[in-house]
């Protein structure tokens, strides 16, 4: 496609340097955060609530703005240029804590809406892909139902399939299992595990230690708008280096 912006040589999928954000009420949410995510890497961000982890990943697709620092996604610099933002949003999928499925559209229409509108693909073409994706997340038989008719776990799996249908280069997960009943957490995590195994680049904000241990390439602990510790999962969970990390782990384990 000729309209696509040129992809720079940078090997990193996401490069955030010294990101600082103040909310309009003066709250200093991000205080110089650095993070590099390589292609195919799975990075789990943990931290107490209010630590800025959700705010941070929401800056990657410009759902939140920031005042200082720089973020580059797949070689495209995030700045105020709307065309750049739209280009980045096409390549970055996001899965929300509250699923945010479109309740007035059927499951299938939830999946096909963006590819048809944004990528200008033919409906029939997208339909086939959408059915294949629903098959993959295990809810093909619900394709013609509406989101309100599904359980939370099913809705979140539809939300993941909806993001995948745009064929993103990276998927962001903002506490994807936090509003699910315990028995539904596993079915969502299994889907995410499968994606990671297929080499999808993922940044996941979650409190699921088991998932982080098994799937993450790296765990990042954020507190008070800063990165406190960044380490391999075994290292992080078994031998945390910082007092703040130990304190956090003692609370969730």
């Amino acid at each position, binding site marked *: 496609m000729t309209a696509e912006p040129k992809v720079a040589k940078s090997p990193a999928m996401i490069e955030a340097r010294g990101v600082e954000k103040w909310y309009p009420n003066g709250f200093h949410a991000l205080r110089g955060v650095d993070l590099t995510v390589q292609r195919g890497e799975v990075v789990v961000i943990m931290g107490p609530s209010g630590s800025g982890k959700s705010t941070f990943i929401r800056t990657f697709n410009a759902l939140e703005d920031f005042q200082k620092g720089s973020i580059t996604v797949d070689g495209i610099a995030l700045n105020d240029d709307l065309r750049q933002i739209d280009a980045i949003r096409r390549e970055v999928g996001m899965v929300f804590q509250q699923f945010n499925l479109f309740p*007035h559209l059927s499951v299938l229409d939830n999946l096909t809406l963006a590819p048809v509108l944004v990528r200008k693909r033919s409906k029939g073409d997208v339909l086939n892909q959408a059915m294949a994706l629903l098959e993959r997340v295990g809810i093909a038989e619900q394709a013609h139902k509406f989101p309100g*008719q599904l359980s939370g776990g099913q809705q979140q799996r539809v939300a993941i399939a909806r993001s995948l249908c745009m064929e993103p280069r990276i998927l962001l997960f903002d506490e994807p299992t936090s509003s699910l009943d315990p028995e539904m957490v596993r079915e969502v995590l299994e889907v995410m595990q499968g994606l990671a195994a297929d080499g999808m680049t993922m940044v996941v904000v979650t409190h699921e230690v088991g998932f982080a241990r098994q799937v993450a390439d790296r765990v990042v602990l954020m507190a008070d708008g800063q990165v406190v510790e960044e380490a391999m999962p075994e290292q992080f969970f078994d031998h945390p280096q910082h007092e703040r990390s130990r304190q956090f782990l003692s609370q969730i384990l």
Partner: protein
Amino acid sequence: MPRVVRSSLRKELFANPIDGLVSVLLISGVGAAGYGLIHWALTQAQWVVIQANSTLFAVGRYPIEQQWRLWLLVALVAAATGLSWGALRGLPQRDRPITAVWPRNDRIAAIVLVALCGWAPAALGLAWPIQARWWALTALLLVLRWLAGRYASRLRKVATLGLPLLWPLLYLVGMVLIGGGLGLVTVGANEWGGLLLTLIEASFAILLSAPLGVVLALGRRSSLPLLRWGSIAYIEFIRGAPLITLLFLGQNILGFLLPGGLAPDRIWRAAWILTFFSAAYLAEAVRAGLAAVPRGQLEAARSLGLNLPQALSRVVLPQALRIALPATVGQFISLLQDTTLLSLIGLLDLLGTARSVMANPLYLGKSAEVYLTLAVLFWCCCAALGLGSRALERRLNPPTLGP
């Protein structure tokens, strides 16, 4: 009395002494008033005032030799009504499956319609050919209702796309038929009157204030300060002024503001004022709908790459307008009733025509008959709007888990 009826009566009306007392008082009160009204309507009222002026009430002083155009329009409206009714029935209602082509409510409505069209023209003492026309129109409506209801599920795409287009298109055709042009003799707006004028004014304002209200509601939530403050100023100014003052203002000021010839004549000035007035209230209804759509909906749409117009038109507005539908139709109903204020600025709408009839010495003291007729006519129009909106609402609500 069967035992079931007796026990349910006891439970609902006479469960304890106080309930019983309230029931007896209410039943005797309503009964007395109803008896009085019916007794008056059948024995004392002199309906000749309605019979003699039925054409005047319907279309005002519309030239007789051109009235075939109005008949054609009524036929088109009847056809469109039948098609819409049937198509709405045929579309799946989300909370229950379609059972029959003629569900019970529809059978009742059809019987009421047939009874009305058999009785009203005869009661008005219309000539036989005219009575026959009304029968034909009713038959047309019901036949199209049947056809559309039968085949709507097969023509679902056509129905969902076509119906919203059908009515604005019909409005344009109707305006040509009423006003002339395209080879038809011109009938000036000052010759329109009665129910015809009331419906023209109300439908004009309904059709145009709906999009204007949506734009204003979006403007009020916009991040562009000029747009936001402009919308707020407009909405608050209009909502702060009584409609009647705006109508007088419109009649006087539009004439001064616009150079001669450009200012629309009185009837269209009034229609525009009604539109602007209604749009401000609609904007507030739509704003409430927009506020009820969770923020995450817009975020999800934007993060999928939809631009703002796409996200609004495909994700946010469909949900917001659905939530705003009852309030919107409520606004349309009060708009229809507000058209009676036009009689105060000298237009011969339904109320204006009625007042001119009552001023005729021949019909002195017949105002009760006239006002009752007006009330019934307005009630019919508003009831139709309300019924249609509830049917639409039930079909638009997305289904959820459970019963």
